[in-house]
């Protein structure tokens, strides 16, 4: 992890309310693992005050170019969307624990909801580079929220309103895969809203034999380096909680207390 002043190369709308930011990190830079994140100090004022976390959606280690996909949600992300090429951004990363690569011969199935798409695109690419044939299922409220140009061709789409792809959620996508009996010892990777991950995890545990599930969680962060105990999630372990920023954001789904 390191603090760096990166230079924005592009910051563009890729779907309704969704942006892709591309920035160059000066040397010497650390290369993020897939599933890791960085934090950005957005603006220089006191509101927003805290740095905001975003997952890497790509990283070109030949020249230190990072990409992230983010949704305009509140104050900070609105302000971030006003950054332009050549602006500087103050970043801190790479942070946290990323995804574990599958064992050879496993079928990786990636399920992304909303802006959970960012790290999943990065993971998809990495898996392909390692010779896997991952399946990517992406869900969103409706077609215009999906940055489809960024998706691999074979991406399976689901929307709540059926405006593109299947009508339903990524779970429906997973279920239909099962009916095509693709899934033996599958390795599921989930990133998206908490309730989506919860539903998919619980379903897969009771419906897929020996599924193993990696989830990438979100939690409000203070320090993002493990110091403040602010970003915890409940786990099945006597200590009760784990810190998303440094023990995650990627966890084995079995560890999480999904209550």
């Amino acid at each position, binding site marked *: *992890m*390191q*603090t760096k002043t990166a230079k924005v190369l592009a910051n563009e709308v890729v779907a309704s309310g969704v942006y892709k930011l591309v920035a160059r990190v000066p040397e010497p830079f650390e290369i993020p693992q897939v599933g890791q994140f960085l934090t950005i*100090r957005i603006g220089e004022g*006191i*509101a*927003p*005050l*805290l*740095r905001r976390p975003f997952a890497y959606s790509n990283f070109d280690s030949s020249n230190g170019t990072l990409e992230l996909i983010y949704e305009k949600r509140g104050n900070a992300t609105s302000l971030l969307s006003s950054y332009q090429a050549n602006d500087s951004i103050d970043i*801190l990363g790479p942070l946290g624990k990323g995804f574990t690569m599958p064992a050879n011969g496993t079928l990786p199935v990636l399920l992304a909801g909303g802006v959970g798409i960012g790290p999943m695109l990065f993971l998809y690419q990495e898996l392909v580079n390692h010779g896997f044939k991952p399946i990517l299922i992406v869900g969103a409220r409706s077609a215009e929220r999906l940055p489809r140009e960024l998706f691999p061709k074979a991406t399976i789409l689901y929307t709540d309103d059926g405006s593109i792809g299947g009508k339903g959620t990524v779970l429906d996508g997973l279920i239909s895969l099962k009916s095509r009996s693709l899934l033996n010892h599958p390795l599921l990777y989930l990133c998206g809203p908490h309730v989506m991950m919860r539903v998919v995890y619980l379903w897969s545990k009771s419906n897929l034999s020996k599924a193993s599930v990696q989830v990438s969680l979100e*939690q*409000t*962060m*203070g*320090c*993002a*380096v*493990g*110091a*403040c*105990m*602010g*970003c*915890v*999630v*409940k786990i099945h372990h006597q*200590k*009760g*909680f784990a810190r998303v920023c*440094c023990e995650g954001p990627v966890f084995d789904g079995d560890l999480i207390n999904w209550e």
Partner: protein
Amino acid sequence: MAKTFDLRVKIGSLTLSNPVGVASGTFGYGSEYEQLIPVDQIGAIYTKAVTLEPRSGNEIPRIVETPGGLLNSIGLANVGSREFALSKYPFLKGLKCSVIVNLAGSYEDDYVKTLDYLEEHAALDGYEINVSCPNVKCGGMAIGTDPSMVQKLTERLRTRTQKPLIVKLSPNVTDIAAIAMAAQDGGADAVSCINTVVGMLIDTKSKRPILPMSTGGLSGPAIFPIALAAVWKVSRAISIPVIGMGGITEPDHAIQFLLAGADAIQTGTINFVDPLMSLKVLEGIRAFMDKEGLTRVADFHQFLPRS
């Protein structure tokens, strides 16, 4: 023609190399920030609160942003004194900078037992007695808002250690100077102020308080003027050193604390935003002293004498 400044600050028997510390709960146990800042150059690290037994802390969410501030409800989540001695102490002991353990508990006895345990198994440079945490059901602020309880607790701890005892004051009182005097009367070597201010946010979508215990502790830029007023008042009521904190985001704020009567300061929430700010503050203090011809930290007090 670089002048030499004497940046040292004495707290009881301890000499800090400079007046800038990092506040409890915002710098973990030091190692978390090792890659981001040359930790040894900081004047003092105040650890996350240590309690006798481990505490998992409060439910989530624990952190939420407010206008210009941060509201937290960590609930003294910490590894407990035994694990602290085992896994945190070795790193901290190896540091060149001073390390002060922030001590917390529910009842007076907890503080005493924790101090005894640490004295024996994980002796560092001093103790900051946290009687001002607003995020726990008992202990914490319940003690820190009552002068007689503060005095009694300080007296008991005083008999058990030679190390500096720093009592951390709560701003959530009618008369913070009275609490400071109680700490001084009890034998404290210094007071630090302020801990967080009680605050609250409600989510108008769910129509519930955002934090699990309804209220939390407010820190960050929003509270700076409140903290400065507290340090000003406390400095005029007692003669032991005062360590100022609350809302520092730039060197000028730290200088204001020193002018108000503080002998040292701590950066807190801003460490999350800019992990290097403590050392930037130190640099700013040095530059100010240079410009103004001050040579010792005590020189800051000549303009607005403490008494």
